[in-house]
């Protein structure tokens, strides 16, 4: 009897060690997909660098103009798109005017995708925002940092027309906006070159405009020195940065949801490692005895 029991138990650990990996895959799918459906507001510790970006936007008085440069492509969507959405929610809530542009060809399209999402919100709908008055999308212009430099003299030089082909002079929002002197903040979402570093070097250092940014997790640490010197108000780093921004904003969105998935998934992996090791050690002990 006893012997039989032992055999059974042994086979349990053995089975656990040789578990079909599809079961592990299933756990990961559930760990990631399920939290996406819950609107959980997880308490996310906020870092000072992320708070810097939030405060730079929060402190602008209503009616201020923000130039938002979208310098990334679909490859960085999971990390940067939540920041883009949170930014628009933030800007529209505080009645800021947004001028969208891009140094990457797909950047302004990413902005449009984010806008579509944000316009579903009841609060935003209620504001009845109008293109050309509350926000405008200038589109993409080739030339990397040269564009940044030229816009210091005149936006019209780089963008004679907006993304839809309307001359800038005919857009109400752009009236009186000649160069960086007429915007109150630049907000930059960047996944590489050209990106935040170029904005610091060619816009902040030369024209003394304020800059706040969001970057991919890989790139963000390289921007910390600029935050330290004050050239950059703050930087959001990766999905976690997006979640911090949403937490500060009080509107938990994609990133917070994503972060919840992320945390659960990490916990599940750690749990699997622990189970694997328990099985491994009990097997070894048995074999030794």
């Amino acid at each position, binding site marked *: 009897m006893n012997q039989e029991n032992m055999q059974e138990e042994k086979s349990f650990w053995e089975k656990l060690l040789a578990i079909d990996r599809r079961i592990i895959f299933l756990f990961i799918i559930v760990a990631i997909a399920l939290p996406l*459906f819950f609107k959980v507001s997880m308490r996310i510790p906020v870092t000072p660098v992320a708070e810097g970006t939030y405060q730079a936007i929060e402190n602008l008085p209503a009616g201020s103009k923000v130039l938002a440069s979208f310098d990334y492509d679909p490859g960085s969507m999971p990390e940067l798109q939540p920041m883009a959405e949170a930014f628009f929610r933030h800007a529209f809530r505080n009645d800021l005017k947004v001028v969208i542009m891009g140094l990457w060809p797909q950047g302004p399209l990413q902005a449009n995708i984010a806008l579509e999402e944000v316009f579903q919100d009841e609060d935003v709908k209620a504001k009845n925002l109008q293109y050309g008055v509350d926000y405008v999308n200038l589109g993409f212009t080739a030339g990397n940092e040269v564009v940044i430099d030229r816009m210091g003299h005149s936006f019209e030089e780089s963008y004679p027309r907006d993304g839809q082909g309307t001359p800038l002079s005919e857009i109400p929002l752009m009236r009186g906006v000649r160069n960086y002197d007429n915007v109150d903040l630049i907000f930059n979402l960047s996944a590489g070159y050209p990106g935040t570093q170029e904005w610091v070097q060619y816009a902040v250092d030369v024209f003394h405009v304020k800059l706040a940014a969001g970057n991919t997790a890989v790139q963000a640490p390289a921007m910390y020195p600029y935050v330290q010197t004050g050239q950059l108000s703050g930087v959001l780093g990766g999905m976690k940065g997006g979640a911090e921004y949403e937490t500060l904003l009080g509107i938990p969105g994609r990133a917070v949801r994503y972060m919840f998935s992320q945390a659960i998934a990490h916990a599940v992996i750690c749990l699997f490692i622990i189970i694997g090791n328990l099985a491994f050690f009990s097997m070894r002990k048995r074999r030794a005895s």
Partner: protein
Amino acid sequence: MSGEVVGVWIGAILTLGIFSFLYKDNPFYKFSEALFVGVSAGYWFVVTFWQYFLPKLIDNLALAYTVLAVEGRIDYHWVYILGGGLGILMLLRLFPSVGWLSRWSLAFIVGTTAGLQFTRYLESNGIIQVKGTILPLIVGGDLNTTIGNIVIVVGTFCGLIYFFFSKEHRGAFGGAARIGVWFLMITFGALFGYTVMSRMSLLIGRMDYLFSNWLHLIG
């Protein structure tokens, strides 16, 4: 249905095709895989044509020809004919009798790589890294940095001992090599753990694509 909606459906179906691989190999995955291989090879072919073949070869030769026609002098850019020649030698592989000539192009490529990387690695992976390891072992008033610097110097030293090929790992030398292995293992563990986050982000991004962009289950 607009082009965009059709596009999302195509993308979503192909996404599921690749995911089905997790269960087991099946015709749906085979189809997605075959399409992926074909489309990506075509993608690369198109990119190579517009971004390498045309600007690097044809444009340079056209420039040389323009200078000759307009100013009547032989321009530096004619040397690109040699590059084109090496390229054509590669294509001779299609003809077994003269295929061996392609080895000249291969020799050129291998030689260029060996020479370029020789100095590049020695400088950026070698000398600059050694220089970066030259750290003061005692930093007054900063215990954290002091310990950290000692860890870096000792770790790098022992790690290098592990890589010795011509000496047996025995005695004190073997002990140092063992410490070196510990450092390597911590490095690997840390890099593994560090990457898990971004890998999970990718999957979250895909899941969200399926649930929000395609099925609109999440608002």
